[in-house]
């Protein structure tokens, strides 16, 4: 699977969880952290791992390839599955998701304020 396809699938899985759990995703960037920036609760992260497993047909967390606490950002997830599926990883950021940080910062501020 190409890097582009992996990224597309990862983003789809995130969108699916967000849509099921009514999480408002204004915009996503690859350096966004799943919990802090996207606002995922721990069961949402758990659900995401299940969606990723069913999409990519591998489970790097159970097989010991990855420790969940070390996976924080969307980029981390893409790298992990790139490594699992292709044995490589592209550290570069996704092409169309590296614009402004405003939304992320706003969300962090909101969380702190809350």
């Amino acid at each position, binding site marked *: 699977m190409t890097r582009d396809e992996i990224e597309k699938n990862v983003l789809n899985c995130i969108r699916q969880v967000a849509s*099921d759990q009514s999480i408002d995703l204004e915009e996503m960037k690859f350096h966004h952290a799943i919990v802090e920036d996207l606002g995922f609760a*721990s*069961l949402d*992260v*758990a*659900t995401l*791992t*299940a969606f990723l497993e069913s999409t990519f047909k591998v*489970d790097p*967390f*159970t097989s010991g390839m990855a420790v*969940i606490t070390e996976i924080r950002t969307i980029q981390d997830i893409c790298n992990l599955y790139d490594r699992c599926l292709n044995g490589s990883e592209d550290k570069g950021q996704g092409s169309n998701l590296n614009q402004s940080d405003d939304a992320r910062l706003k969300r962090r501020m909101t969380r702190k304020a809350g």
Partner: protein
Amino acid sequence: MLVAILEKHAKRMPDEIGFIAGGVEVTWLSLHRKVKLFCDQLSRRRASRRILYVDGRTSDDLALLIASSSLPGESILVSSFHSESRTKELLSEFDGEDLLAAENDRIKVVGERKKPSPTPSAGTYVCLLTSGTTGSPKCVKYDWERISGAVSENSKYVGRRWLMGYHITNFAGIQVFLQCFVNGGCLVIPDQWPPSWANDVEALSKYQIQYLNCTATYMRKILFSLADDMEIPLKSITLGGEMVDQVLIDSLKRRLPAAKVNHIYASTELGATIEVRDEKEGFPKELLLRGNLRIIEGELYAKKSHRSMLGYLGLTEASSMAPESDSWLPTGDLVDIENDRVIFLGRRDSMVNVGGFKVNPFGVEGVIREVKGVKEVSVSGQKNPIAGNLLKAILVPCSDQDEKELKTRVLEHCRSRLPYYSVPRLFEFREELTYTSSYKVKRNA
């Protein structure tokens, strides 16, 4: 024991129909003749422990079952959905000698296993395999008096029609068979197992069935398959084998107002323990005062009774054949007392740990069933590296449902009724759920 009852029916009402098996009517007289023939053929076999292939869908099958009740030793009933090679393994596992079936008026020896010195057996026993969802099945031993312990004899049942909603080799199936047979009723045994809903619904009307005994899952299937204008003469529905909720009882009362809805709490090992006739879920708290049921740490415990098994057949035979003791046996069912009722919460081994919270999948299923457009649902845990488990709901939608919209409605309804950890996270849509051989929903499948 059964042969004597059959003889009585054959004398009193020779031309009445005792069974409709696989669409063929069987009179008491013709069945009695066949049973006599089989008793004669079986008396030449010297085995003291045997496996019988019985599906109850032909008069040969029924005659073999009845004739076996006069054979000394143990007769283990096995359905034909066990392959011949698997059944031969069972023959050796349970130390049996003969593997028998019946067709075209003859007893057929399907397999034989010679033992150096067969142990003669005093008494006549019927043995049933437990469903054995994990590992090898266990084989439960009864004598015919015990297994008939819950049969209620009443002349009003003569000629009444029952539909068999279980397989005849299940504990519940044998109970229905005995209830009908002992009373001289007419038992309709569908020709397909697993059941074909269209056929069974047709049978209810065609044969003017008055009594139906089945699992809650089977009953829901029948309800969904009933056309709105179809007249069904059912007088009594008895549900067993699975938890029965008020939603099901109420839907049955609405659609079939003339039918009494009872439910039975029984297990293959303990036999029938409670029969609830007040058309409410759970059972009255007063029953706990009878001395054979109690609640220990949220789990229902029961005492063995004169209706319970003698023990398990096999390696631990000697130790498990102890007579009734005062010890309490865990039933595996979790219960709670709400007002004056003992309410079933679910099976202890079905509880799912989601992120440290214990979730009862049966309760979640009940909530999901309230959503319009859901035909069937099964909830179970799916292993997850972060949460331990995530709840997964398998949904069978009604025919005109958009899956995405239905999922949204289910999620909204669950969020409004359940704590966040009890709301299913994973969804799958299917045309059918998976069922056990006794027609209960098989979770995790």
